[in-house]
């Protein structure tokens, strides 16, 4: 049945032509005129050291140097969820590459040359480079003043330790349940750090004009959050929010890496020191690796009990997150993972401890999956091992324990409607689960792996979205929002939602990237929430416009509003077949009465959305009582792999992923998220990882040695499956699914490797080398 005219259709992207023609402007494509200055950063050479002094005299002598800025210029602590970072390092540095000073010059070459002449005198301290070291006996405290840091009320820093936040979840009695279990399995899984590797690096251009107005152009997923943090961090300089403006052009890939505020604060801060001149700061690819958010590593201890009939009785999950030098954003990843570390399973007795641990490695932060990819590697590996122990088919085992609508979530609220069972069945069928396959090549073995996944948006309970919608003379319209188009196709989805309400085709709707002065508030484009949150705001704005239209027709034409509807860009009547008034005839100019006067005026719709049922307040010892997550998106995935036992190389003939997105507003875009996300996930398990030397320096800060997949590294076949069990509060039933497509990649591969070889690899990545050497060692023993 054709329920909708625009929603559920794969319309051509509204940002299509601008992108395929190379016309789309990214931060480095904007022109700032001949007055533009360039900044180069003086970086810490050490992972942990006291700054004794900074000598800038030699650098200042270089012609073309305009200004040199150090930590003394900005002694302000700030952050998103916890105020634990500085614009420039103050008395100490906490990771290799941390910004210590900046040289601003007339051209980039001069800035680079002069930055080399800034002399920083350090006293080296012992670097803390692992969670084990950070939590060991009398560890060196990376943030001695932790207890004084301002933070959101749902964080619980542990005084006099390197634990910035501990999320505890308790329900039932795990000890009793383990004792009652027929089998208890205990193991440790480790996941390293990863880099987002958006093809566009971070950049910012700041301009403080002589009237006191600060404008910052950024490559960002979070223009309003950036404005807020810039205003807040620089408040001692007298800025009000109205004086700060963030303009964000197209973003060349985000994946969480451009969420919040990372290096962009430098653009804002430096601008205040060179009034009247725009100043540009653009990261190199190496800086992109070591001085933006990284996906945090985790060491996860898992203990799960089961009954012989396959019922999971209890779960104890202890997660130690290597959160890096500053955790102002990363601590919320730790929090989110802690609240959901059961995975999509119904488990009556749970004990979860999720530790956010400071280390002297680069700051951790959001990355597509927001902690779920990391814990799911261990959890879904563990689920398979448990199934094996009780001799149950791993898919049957999952189905027996999979969470259902109305089941109790870790924190006590009820699970939302979902199509998890449908996803499991469809994926199992597509991958031909249970059908054993053998290779004709004696060196090769074939294995299959299965995993469920889930994820909730991790947002403050009052994270909100808003939208304006304005008509033009010809009945075309512009939608103003502040969510970011980061590749996912969000602008198109919003256009489709407005089109559905207003009967205006997508081709007549323009949605563009935001300017915080002109576009209404959006919290951030993260958490896979914008289709849901901002989609709701746009739907409401469109409905607001529609109601205004009906008001006007009622008032000017004397029609009953309940008889009116919109179709083909006209107002029509259910009772008067001949009545059809094109929107363009009155949408700006109004409707003329017989006496020559007009009724109406430009129609402008307004919408906003805040999940008013959410709350982050709960008992800190158990996490019971609140409603921190608005809903979960669930799904299942499976893979068939072929392993060369000698080389360890893994080929992927087929991968299947089913996700319940509630309603696919644009199925092609959903499929695009699946195809892209699954590959990004497969790369994390097969070859990517960040490598640090014993001094804490990242040694693969480039694409020669941090390998991201090429066109030759894709699965032979990716089968996306869309499940649609409506989200009651979503626009047309939609909920987010962008991050989710990456989450199950690691465990499906790990489980398939085990299926093929009988070898359980418990640390990521599972490289060809690791597989080959494990096979070799196994055959030796």
């Amino acid at each position, binding site marked *: 049945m054709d329920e909708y005219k625009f929603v559920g259709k794969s319309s051509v*992207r509204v940002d299509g032509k601008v992108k395929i*023609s*190379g016309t789309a402007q990214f931060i*480095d494509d904007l022109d700032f005129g001949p007055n533009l200055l360039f900044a180069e950063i003086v970086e810490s050479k050490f992972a942990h050291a006291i700054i004794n002094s900074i000598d800038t005299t030699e650098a200042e002598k270089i012609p073309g140097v305009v200004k040199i800025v150090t930590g003394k210029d900005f002694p302000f602590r700030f952050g998103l969820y916890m105020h634990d970072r500085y614009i420039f390092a103050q008395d100490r540095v906490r990771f290799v590459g941390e910004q210590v000073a900046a040289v601003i010059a007339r051209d980039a070459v001069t800035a680079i040359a002069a930055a080399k002449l800034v002399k920083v005198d350090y006293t080296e301290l012992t670097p803390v480079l692992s969670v084990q070291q950070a939590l060991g006996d009398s560890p060196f405290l990376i943030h001695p003043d932790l207890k004084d840091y301002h933070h959101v009320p749902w964080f619980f820093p542990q005084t006099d330790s390197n634990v910035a936040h501990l999320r505890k979840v308790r329900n039932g009695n795990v000890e009793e349940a383990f004792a009652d279990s027929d089998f208890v399995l205990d193991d440790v899984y480790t996941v390293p750090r990863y880099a987002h590797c*958006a093809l*566009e690096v971070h950049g910012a251009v700041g301009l403080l004009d002589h009237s006191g107005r600060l404008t910052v152009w950024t490559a960002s997923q979070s223009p309003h959050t950036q404005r807020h943090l810039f205003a807040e961090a620089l408040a001692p300089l007298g800025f009000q929010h109205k004086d700060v403006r963030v303009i964000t052009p197209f973003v060349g890939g985000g994946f969480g890496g451009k969420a919040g505020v990372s290096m962009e604060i430098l653009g804002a801060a430096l601008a205040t020191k060179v009034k009247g001149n725009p100043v540009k700061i653009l990261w190199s*690819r190496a800086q992109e690796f070591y001085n933006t958010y990284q996906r945090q590593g985790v060491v996860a201890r898992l203990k799960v009990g089961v009954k012989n009939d396959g019922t999971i009785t209890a779960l104890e999950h202890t997660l130690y997150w290597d959160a890096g030098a500053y955790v102002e954003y990363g601590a919320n990843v730790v929090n989110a993972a802690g609240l959901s570390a059961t995975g999509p399973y119904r488990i009556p007795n749970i004990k979860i401890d999720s530790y956010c641990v400071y280390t002297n490695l680069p700051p951790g932060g959001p990355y597509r999956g927001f902690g779920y990819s990391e814990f799911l590697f261990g959890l879904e590996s563990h689920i398979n091992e448990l199934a094996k122990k009780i001799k149950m088919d791993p898919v049957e085992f999952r189905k027996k324990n999979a969470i259902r609508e109305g089941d109790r979530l870790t924190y006590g609220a009820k699970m939302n409607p979902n199509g998890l069972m449908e996803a499991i069945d469809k994926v199992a069928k597509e991958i031909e689960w249970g059908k054993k396959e053998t290779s004709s090549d004696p060196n090769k073995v074939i294995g299959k792996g299965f995993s469920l996944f889930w994820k909730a948006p991790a947002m403050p309970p009052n994270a909100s979205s808003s939208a304006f919608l304005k008509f033009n003379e010809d009945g075309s319209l512009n939608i103003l929002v502040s969510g970011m188009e980061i590749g*996912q196709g969000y602008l198109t989805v919003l256009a489709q939602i407005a089109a559905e309400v207003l009967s205006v085709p997508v081709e007549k709707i323009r949605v563009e990237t935001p300017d915080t002065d002109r576009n209404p508030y959006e919290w951030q484009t993260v958490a896979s929430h914008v289709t849901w949150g901002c989609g709701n705001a746009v739907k409401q704005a469109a409905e607001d416009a529609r109601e205004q239209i009906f008001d006007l027709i009622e008032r000017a034409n004397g029609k009953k509003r309940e008889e009116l509807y919109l179709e083909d860009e006209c107002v029509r009547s259910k009772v008067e077949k001949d009545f059809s008034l094109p929107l363009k005839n009155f949408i700006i100019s109004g409707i003329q009465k017989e006496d020559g006067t007009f009724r109406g005026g430009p129609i402008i719709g307004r919408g906003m959305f805040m999940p008013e049922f959410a709350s982050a307040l709960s008992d800190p010892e158990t996490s019971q009582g609140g409603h921190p997550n608005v809903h979960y998106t669930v799904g299942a995935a499976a893979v068939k792999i072929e392993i060369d036992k000698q080389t360890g190389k893994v080929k992927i003939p087929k991968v299947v992923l089913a996700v319940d997105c509630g309603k696919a507003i644009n199925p092609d875009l959903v499929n695009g998220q699946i195809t892209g996300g699954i590959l990004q996930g497969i790369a994390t398990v097969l070859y990517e990882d960040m490598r640090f030397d014993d001094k804490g320096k990242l040694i693969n800060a480039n694409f020669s040695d941090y390998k991201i997949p090429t066109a030759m590294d894709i699965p032979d076949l990716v089968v996306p499956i869309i499940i649609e069990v409506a989200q009651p509060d979503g626009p047309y039933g939609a909920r987010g699914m962008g991050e989710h497509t990456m989450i199950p990649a690691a465990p499906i591969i790990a489980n398939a490797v085990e299926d093929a070889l009988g070898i359980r690899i418990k640390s990521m990545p599972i490289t060809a080398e690791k597989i080959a050497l494990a096979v070799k060692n196994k055959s030796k023993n």
Partner: protein
Amino acid sequence: MKKEISFLLNSERRTIDVSSSEILLEVLRDRLGLNSPKCGCDRGDCGTCSVMINGKTVRSCLILAIEVEDQEVVTLEGIMQNGLTPLQESFLKHNSFQCGFCTPGVILSTTELLAKNPHPNKEEIQEAIAGNLCRCTGYSPIIDAVIDLVK
């Protein structure tokens, strides 16, 4: 060292002064206003800076501007002189892009492939774009667009 060089850029003869140490990518972007080639890694690994010299795609971040004297340089802007190419239309149809940052480079690499081999198979397409990193699409929508175009 400064030198006046003259070269064919997107079918137009251009003459500019360049310093011997200037990089082609930066001259194209900052001095000639052509923004389709992007800087993604600055060391030849990612392919976002791809342009064509004498019909072959190259990494403009690894070329001195002064090297292109008397050569023919084509950027993505240069292949659209009669509007979007059928290849670009096929990209549009297949959603063969997401953020759009790698797209100019991918289109140029594919354009070179099709000029040399009008009916490439899947493997040949993969090989041709293997030097263009894309973090968004998972590549198969790009491959599909080319296959659909040449079938």
